[in-house]
Every structure is written in structure tokens, then in C-alpha cells.
């Protein structure tokens, strides 16, 4: 349990923009995860995605770390900025870019840079979506 929690914390602390979502950027399995991704893509943020579906423990441990009960969860520079609603709201107000600049410094933009981190070895062969 704590090993998984440590890996989650490590992703949050080391990735510029970490998105814990259902599915992957190529195939978001949930409308809210897709909304958060769209807002981040629109401003050219680099995206590191973690699919929480392969193991229910990921979501449990993540919520224990963040205090946030729902998915997706978007972290910038180690800080939870919110779920889909807040990410969209920040994008609409122009605040999202300001926040990215403030947290990540100049040159944070990396349009199209998207990668996926697998937290669970091999994942599960049977994905419940």
C-alpha cells in the first residue's frame, strides 16, 4: 500500500503536469477526464497521464494523498489545481496559463508532449471501464 502511495507522490512531485484520469490521453474513458485534457491541451501544457483504472487501489491511495474524492485530478508543479470543472474554469479565465507559468517557470509550454506512466506493473488484463 505505502509503496503505491510513494509512487503516486513521486509522480505528483516530479512531473510538471500530472493528470490522474480514467483511460489514457489517446483514449479517455470518461467525459470529465477528456474535459480536463482538452483544457490543458488548449494552452499547450505538457501532459503526464496516469490511468487509474487498472487497479482500484490507485484511486484510493491518490484520494488519500490529495484529499480530493473524484477523478480526474490535475497537479501542476506538485500542487492540486483541481478536477475537470476547475481546470476548465481556469482555462476560461486565462488563469490556467498564469498558474502554469508561475509553477513551472518560463518555457513551460510543450504542445503535444503527452506521455503515460503505468503505476501498476503490467496493469490488469481485464479493464472495467
Amino acid at each position, binding site marked *: 500500500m505505502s509503496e503505491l502511495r510513494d509512487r503516486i507522490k513521486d509522480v505528483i512531485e516530479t512531473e510538471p503536469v500530472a493528470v490522474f484520469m480514467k483511460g489514457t490521453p489517446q483514449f479517455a474513458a470518461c467525459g*470529465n477526464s477528456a474535459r480536463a485534457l482538452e483544457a490543458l491541451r488548449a494552452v499547450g501544457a505538457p501532459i503526464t497521464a496516469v490511468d487509474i483504472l487498472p487497479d482500484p487501489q490507485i484511486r484510493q491511495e491518490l484520494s488519500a494523498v490529495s*484529499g*480530493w474524492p*473524484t477523478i480526474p485530478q490535475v497537479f501542476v508543479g506538485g500542487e*492540486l489545481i*483541481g478536477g*475537470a470543472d476547475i481546470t476548465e474554469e481556469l482555462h476560461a479565465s486565462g488563469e490556467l496559463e498564469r498558474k502554469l507559468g508561475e509553477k513551472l517557470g518560463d518555457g513551460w509550454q510543450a504542445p503535444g508532449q503527452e506521455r503515460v506512466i503505468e503505476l501498476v506493473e503490467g496493469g490488469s488484463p481485464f479493464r472495467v471501464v
Partner: protein
Amino acid sequence: MAAERLESLLRDAFPEASDIAALDRTGTGDHFQVVVASSRFDGLSLVDQHKLVYDALAAPLADGTIHELRIRTRGSE
């Protein structure tokens, strides 16, 4: 109706709110949009504002009533 239950939980948690609404987005009793306008949000980050709403709705979030929740919060100004 699940939306009424959510609204009543929000009214209990935010008695001072100037606006509270809960809408069943899909008519299926599990996808909701809630709106809360309260002076308690003044000076709080959006994350902390939404966390207060999640706290108020902890029971329906935990028991599976809420499959998807959209939140809109406003302060008093």
C-alpha cells in the same frame, strides 16, 4: 429524487448560501451539476471551495449515488 437529496444536504451544509441548486443532468439520478454561492467561499482557492462541497456531499459520493458531479461555486462578491 436524488437531486432533491443533494440540494437538501447542501442547504444543511451552507445555511448562509445565497444560491443553491442541484440538477440531474441526464435524468438518470447519477450525473449531477450543483451550484453553490456562499460568502464562506470568499478568499478560498477553487480547490478549497470544491472540497467544502465534496464534504457536504460525502455520503452520496461514498454510497455510489453520485456517478459524476460537476461543481460551480461562487463567493459573495
